[in-house]
């Protein structure tokens, strides 16, 4: 594509993506500003010379046009802008469909002078003569009379002006008529209200495995698990006995998260391993330095600094996990996968306590000093 001509595989004259020397193809529109266009696919380079939606999204024009829309200089200005920023792609030919000349002329005639007031030029590359006349041989785009000027990520003020959706109900007046601060309840806006922090979130965010309310209420009461089951992060139910056994049972693997910890409650850090939803100590019988290394690595810490065998104090009834006799054969397993429950208690009555180092990170080599 260095010559700006296209390889034959691009069917002769499809636009060429200079970045990777492959043919440009129709792609879904992702530009926030133009998600309300009556077409879904676009192709690059666009009519402003941008080579990707990313380049388009951060361009001067992508900032200019929405600001200009707020002056209400022309009802279909944003439609016109989007036909330039993310041109419609004809899926049969992989060709851009241009705006019609009349749309370009109307936009320029009505809005160029407004820009002139603040000393800004009309964008280059928008010579209307390059676009076809309406009803000519070449198809071109004209706006639907009832086209929505503001994209889905923007709020339409009563005056018609578009302001960013995040500015709605933020206690600051962004529309000149204050309409962005009216009807601010989540329900009125078709959203869900977090009970604690009163934040509004979309319904699709409820029970999707990612907490969005500060108190995580959007991820609570999402499933009803039986008494013998525990709830995965994605709200599936998995039997307790399968929890932290070294194998994945939740489809998001959350039954194997946070199974190993070092508690700092005593003078040394006792190793604690979760199994079937309960906490267990690890019997030192059969414990090896390799297991200490596995533990510290799994915890994201450095190599083990010290290993202690801690005598059982005799207070309370402890639950034990034992090193599996054939743990060597379970290569690549997490620590919880090489431990097992046994019917008897720990013979030595000692549990494992560990001190891990910290991973060496974030240090630059020392600057060499030389005599002057």
């Amino acid at each position, binding site marked *: 594509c260095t010559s700006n001509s296209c390889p034959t595989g691009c069917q002769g004259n499809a636009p060429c993506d200079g970045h990777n020397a492959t043919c440009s193809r129709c792609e879904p529109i992702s530009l926030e500003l133009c998600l309300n266009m009556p077409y879904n696919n676009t192709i690059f380079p666009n009519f402003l010379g941008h080579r990707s939606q990313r380049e388009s999204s951060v361009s001067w024009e992508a900032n200019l046009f929405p600001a200009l829309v707020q002056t209400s200089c022309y009802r279909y200005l944003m439609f016109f802008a989007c036909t330039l920023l993310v041109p419609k792609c004809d899926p049969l030919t992989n060709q851009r469909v241009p705006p019609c000349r009349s749309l370009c002329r109307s936009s320029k005639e009505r809005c160029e002078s407004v820009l002139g007031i603040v000393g800004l030029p009309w964008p280059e590359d928008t010579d209307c003569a390059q676009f076809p006349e309406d009803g000519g041989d070449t198809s071109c785009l004209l706006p639907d009379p009832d086209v929505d000027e503001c994209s889905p990520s923007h709020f339409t003020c009563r005056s018609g002006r578009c302001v960013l959706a995040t500015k709605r109900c933020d206690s600051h007046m962004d529309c000149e008529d204050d309409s962005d601060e009216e009807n601010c309840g989540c329900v009125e806006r078709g959203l869900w209200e977090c009970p604690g922090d009163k934040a509004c979130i979309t319904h699709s965010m409820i029970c999707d495995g990612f907490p969005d309310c500060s108190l995580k209420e959007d991820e609570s009461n999402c499933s009803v698990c039986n008494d013998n089951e525990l709830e995965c992060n994605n709200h599936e139910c998995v039997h307790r006995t399968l929890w932290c056994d070294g194998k994945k049972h939740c489809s998001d693997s959350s039954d194997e998260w946070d199974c190993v910890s070092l508690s700092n409650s005593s003078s040394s850090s006792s190793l604690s391993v979760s199994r079937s939803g309960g906490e267990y100590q690890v019997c030192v019988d059969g414990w090896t330095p390799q297991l200490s290394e596995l533990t510290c690595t799994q915890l994201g810490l450095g190599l083990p600094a010290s290993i202690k065998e801690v005598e059982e104090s005799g207070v309370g009834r402890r639950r034990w996990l034992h090193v599996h006799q054939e743990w060597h054969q379970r290569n690549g397993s997490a620590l919880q996968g090489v431990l097992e429950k046994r019917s008897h208690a720990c013979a030595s009555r000692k549990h494992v306590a560990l001190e891990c180092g910290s991973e060496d990170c974030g240090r*630059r080599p020392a600057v060499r000093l030389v005599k002057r």
Partner: protein
Amino acid sequence: ILGGRVSRPGRWPWQCSLQSEPSGHICGCVLIGKKWALTVAHCFEGRESADVWKVVLGINNLDHPSEHTQTRGVASVTLHQRYSRAVVDYDISVLELDREVEITSYVRPVCLPRPGQLPMPDTYCYITGWGHVGNRMPYKLQEGEVRLISLAQCQSYFDMKTITSRMVCAGYESGTVDSCMGDSGGPLVCREGDGRWRLYGLTSWGSVCFSKVLGPGVYANVTHFTSWIQQQIYLRTYNLD
């Protein structure tokens, strides 16, 4: 990096270059462990397959690899499940290298922040990369000092884009020092009191950095993703994903 300066070799040993043929350098990346690096998700748009990528570490001049340079293939690419192209939200990905790097003075990992741990606004931090310098793409790694900016202040610079809590802003209103095209995925690091450098951001997006529209750069907020990163590494290490 706009308004930066050429960096001394070895000064940023966690900086890596994410490359794919035939273009070479596409994005920056950051070493966080012997076998793990971070970059942003948008670098993989249209090229999600791990085998087309390689990671080059310990390099300063892209045109002249030195004896300190180490190259690794990419074993896996994990994009954040919530990555949104439309608003460039959750713009983060974890790279698994095909084998461990050798830790040297020129190749060593940066520290991850604790979850939610972010320096105060107005803290000065550093960005690095081989991205555009305003009139050309440089061969030598560039570095620039930037100031952290609060989300509220940052939103005021981007009237038509949403700034979310998964983003952190740094730079200057005038855009004098800023990241630019080709720096994406590279580090925003701050020096801690103990002399260690910690990764707070990954270069994500901003205005067209060499145009008239200026403002700060927007970075993926690494502290928001600390637990997610640790989980991805854990799941891949123990074949649990």
